[in-house]
């Protein structure tokens, strides 16, 4: 355990400062190239640059390379390659508008390093009830996990700071769960994700200076999914991600198909005169988490973000309770 402290501290410091220091340069670079999109929830016509994916992937690669210097394990390689493939897929989508099916299908490729490097254990562990051996079925789970976590984080990237802030809470909850389960090595491998999200949040929080874009959101989600599989904490990871899962579930159950946000004509949310967010009564618009939050009345963008963070903290606590329950078998 003590031999893990130095790699842990070094990788977290590298993760945080790589993103913290490279993002301002990325913002300037994107501003020069005029790679900006309007922030739809601002009164004035504010343009925000995107994507922030390059600084996020830089943080992941450098911090995980530091860890690879200490422990040469396939698990670290699998996390790096999976995250990088997800970044490339997201970057393609950032630069060129692809169809609704592109990201979920393409992200299947991002799962292959985990399979090829054998960085998984083919059984599912459930709290209280123990484990179930499902070798063939588990392979399917690995293939679908990365597209699900990647797109789930991407779907919650709707307001300033929400995707990165949500990732801070979910990833640190997952790391705490891994420590509780005494899976120290993977816990340390997972810690940089929280610090990368924390550093990016500095620039993404309201008012955003940069948006993560598909490349940023998919990279964060893919790394989270890879940690869940490699750390053998799939159920705990799903619990920590529940608010984002609810968002995807509500969206899919109302739209009844996989569709890109930009292809939807109905607006789930509109603005009041004082530019607060308000739920619409448009029957063609999807039901989303933000729309449900706003059913109680109009709220500012910041207030909606805080409600999402409260939900994330609640599910993070449930995830940690689940980790404790993993140690009990009925």
């Amino acid at each position, binding site marked *: 355990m003590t031999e893990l402290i130095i790699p842990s501290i070094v990788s977290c410091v590298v993760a945080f400062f790589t993103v913290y220091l490279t993002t301002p340069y990325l913002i300037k670079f994107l501003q020069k190239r005029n790679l900006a999109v309007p922030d739809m929830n601002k009164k004035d016509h504010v343009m925000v640059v995107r994507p922030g994916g390059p600084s996020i992937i830089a943080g992941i690669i450098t911090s995980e390379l530091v860890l690879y210097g200490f422990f040469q394990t396939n698990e670290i390689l699998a996390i790096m390659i999976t995250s990088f493939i997800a970044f490339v897929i997201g970057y393609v989508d950032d630069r060129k508008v692809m169809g609704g099916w592109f990201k979920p299908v393409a992200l299947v490729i991002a799962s292959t390093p985990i399979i090829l490097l054998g960085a998984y254990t083919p059984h599912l562990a459930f*709290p209280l*009830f123990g484990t179930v051996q499902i070798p*063939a*079925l588990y392979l399917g789970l690995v293939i679908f996990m990365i597209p699900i976590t990647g797109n789930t984080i991407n779907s919650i990237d709707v307001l300033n700071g929400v995707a990165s802030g949500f990732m801070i809470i979910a990833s640190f909850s997952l790391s705490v769960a891994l420590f509780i389960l005494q899976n120290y090595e993977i816990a340390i491998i997972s810690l940089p994700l929280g610090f990368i999200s924390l550093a990016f949040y500095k620039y993404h929080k309201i008012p955003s200076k940069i948006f993560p874009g598909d490349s940023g959101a998919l990279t964060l989600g893919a790394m989270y999914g890879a940690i869940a599989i490699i750390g053998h904490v799939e159920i705990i990871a799903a619990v920590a991600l529940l608010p984002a899962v609810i968002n995807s*579930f509500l969206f899919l159950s109302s739209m009844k198909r996989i569709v890109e946000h930009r292809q939807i004509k109905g607006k789930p949310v509109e603005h009041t005169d004082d530019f607060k967010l308000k739920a619409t009564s448009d*029957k063609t618009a999807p039901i989303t988490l933000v729309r*449900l*939050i706003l059913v*109680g009345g109009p709220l500012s963008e910041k207030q909606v973000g805080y409600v999402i963070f409260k939900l994330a903290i609640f599910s993070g606590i449930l995830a940690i309770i689940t980790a404790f329950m993993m140690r009990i078998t009925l």
Partner: protein
Amino acid sequence: MRIGLFGFLFTMWILILGGGGVLVMILGPLTISGYGDFDFLIASIIKAIIAIILVIIWILILSKLKNWIFKKEIKF
């Protein structure tokens, strides 16, 4: 509404725990014999089908719960 969201989240968690228990109890002891080399393949296919059915049931329950919890608020 916001209390409803926390309730929905908590219900999802309970469903995950309960669903996990059902999965372990049904799929755990399931073995097939008498088909030689195909035992593993047949068992895997049956396990996959049962798991998919359980996930569909889970989604249906969740969908009903969503309508029940948010029925007063969702008028869209």
